[in-house]
């Protein structure tokens, strides 16, 4: 999942970016509304954390411009403006959620997860595909009752594929949603991660000689996660 933070307080911006990266998200962070709008136009973000009072272009104007350009990223407004009228204005302009500063990081994380799920049409925090079960709230993966220990990158890839289960996902799309602007992405990074993921799933009994694989390769397209043969 890829997140954009648009926040002019450097401390808040850096802290949020660090916390979200450590939670397994690919995070880009900018300090003003103009750069925020530019990023939102060029990258398909899953969630955008947007401050209201911003230099250059305020958050509300940026949100209005985003929605006018049909940018569908889920927007969580982070602001110290706490009146009912402010919240109504933010939500009616196109924000998907509203969080008043100061807030707990856990709450922010929970809201980001919920927004990301909704963005991809998932309402339940648990995604089940055949024997594979992904608890997006706890970021835990199981094959049957056997837990699988995944790296944050492997989990992010599996979660993204699971949210698009049954549909092929291109390598470019995976790269866009799994890596932020700071990451150095090697050409075979996605393939390597998929290989490692398949190995761990097989080891847990999710694939093998007696059962079809869960992650299927589509030549020249990408990957698809589904239960059974394509």
């Amino acid at each position: 999942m890829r997140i954009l933070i648009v926040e002019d307080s450097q401390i808040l911006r850096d802290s949020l970016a660090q916390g979200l990266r450590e939670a397994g998200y690919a995070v880009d962070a900018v300090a003003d509304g103009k750069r925020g709008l530019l990023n939102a136009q060029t990258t398909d973000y899953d969630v955008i954390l947007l401050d209201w009072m911003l230099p250059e272009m305020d958050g509300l104007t940026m949100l209005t411009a985003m929605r006018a350009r049909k940018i569908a990223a889920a927007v969580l407004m982070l602001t110290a403006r706490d009146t009912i009228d402010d919240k109504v204005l933010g939500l009616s302009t196109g924000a998907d959620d509203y969080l008043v500063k100061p807030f707990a990081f856990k709450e922010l994380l929970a809201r980001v997860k919920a927004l990301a799920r909704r963005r991809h049409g998932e309402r339940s925090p648990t995604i089940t595909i055949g024997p594979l079960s992904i608890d997006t709230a706890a970021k835990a993966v199981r094959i049957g009752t056997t837990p699988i220990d995944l790296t944050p990158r492997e989990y992010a890839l599996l979660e993204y594929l699971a949210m698009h289960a049954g549909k092929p996902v291109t390598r470019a799309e995976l790269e866009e949603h799994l890596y932020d602007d700071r990451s150095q992405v090697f050409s075979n990074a996605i393939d390597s991660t998929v290989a490692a993921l398949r190995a761990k799933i097989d080891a847990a009994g999710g694939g093998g000689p007696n059962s079809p694989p869960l992650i299927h390769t589509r030549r020249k397209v990408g990957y698809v996660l589904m239960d059974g043969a394509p």
Partner: protein
Amino acid sequence: MTSIRGRTSLLVAASIAGLLALGGLALFVVVRAALTRQFDDGLAARAAALQSLTRFDGEKVEMDIAGEVMPRYHAGKDAEYFVAWIREGNRWNVLEQSESLPAAAWPGDGPPAPEIVDCPLPSGRPGRSLTIEFIPPAEHDSDDHESSPAATTQQPPSQSITTVRLLVAQSRTALDRTLWTIALSISGVGIALVVASIAATRWAVRRGTRPLEALCARVAALGPETLNQRLTLEHQPMELGPVAARLNDLLARLDEAFKREKSFTSAASHELRTPIAELRMLLEVALSRERTPERWEKTARDGLGVLDRAQRLTEALLRLSRAGAGSGSAPTDATADLAAILRQQAARALEVHGHDPSHLSIDAPDALAAPIDPALAASIIGNMLDNALHHGDVAEDRPARCIARQGSAGVSITITNYAPTLTTGDVAHLFEPFWRKDPARSPHDARQGFGLGLSVGRVLAESAGGRITAVFDADHQLGVTFQVPLSR
């Protein structure tokens, strides 16, 4: 709680009731006097008739009623009475009496004095009697006396001449019944009029006080959320028009004060939330997993930076609050040298904001005394200088200029600086708390102000009896002037 309508209704109704009672009483007294006079005239006529029948034939006095038909004096339920006494020596002997009297004579010892009085009748009923005294005329001049019986009664009785005292009495039951009927009628009509007047008074007072009640209802419905509403001045009675106008003025001022307070509270809350959010996020993320000592050190430094800013904000808010609390304080006898303070504060501000001395020019006399507390003056002038050097575009070729002068109106200090991003419309907001040209309210630049400096300065200046004004010209020169009168 008393109501104007209730009290007015009560007072008017009581007044009407009192007037009606007095009127009714006066009417009854007049009617009773008239009827009693009429009754007494009847008695007098009867007495005169009987007197005309009394003759003195030279030897004795006699009443010639034997052949008369006088049924009213016969015994019966509504009988009337008469008794005639003749004086013989020192005694009064009954000469004649009506058939209606029982065998005994008129109650009492002898005839009563000549007068009209209320008395009980022998039948036990209440009555009224008239007693007259006269000298009966002799036979030969009886015609004269018949023609003028009253004149006879007016002759003074002589001891040597036979004197007759004649009493006629009549029941006053009919008179009393009539008077009672009249009294009842007056009372009934009076009570009905009082009841009607109460209803009419309530209706009139309710109608008369309707505009007042409408005004009260509108005022009672006002609250913090409806202070933008105004009372209607049209169709207000002459007495309430000025009240409504005054209330509207008061509402306008209250509305403005509420909005200002709400805006200030909202801005202060916003400003205070930002450093709290920064610190919380900084610490929560740092604590979420193990960190290196270097990382913890950076977190601590970042946290201290946030705290420093929060502290400066809190102190600025406290200054503003204290300055506001000190408004209108008692005048001080202290005198400050504003020229010296200006130079002192200029040196401080240049250093704090990292400016070269060439970025600020000062045109001031050696000394400039003003009736103001030196610390207060330093705070006001310091705020003005901070504002100019921090927000203004100042450099060696476009320095901020300070001019201190003494004029007839008082002592003034004007600080002018180039403000390229400012617009004429912004000048009105310069003294608003938390107003900043850049709407971003959580700057990470530690030197960034809070938008409180000029607000604090204005409140302090007003508390010292002075004022701060701002002027912005077409060349983007912003001039802020602090003026303090020579005497408070």
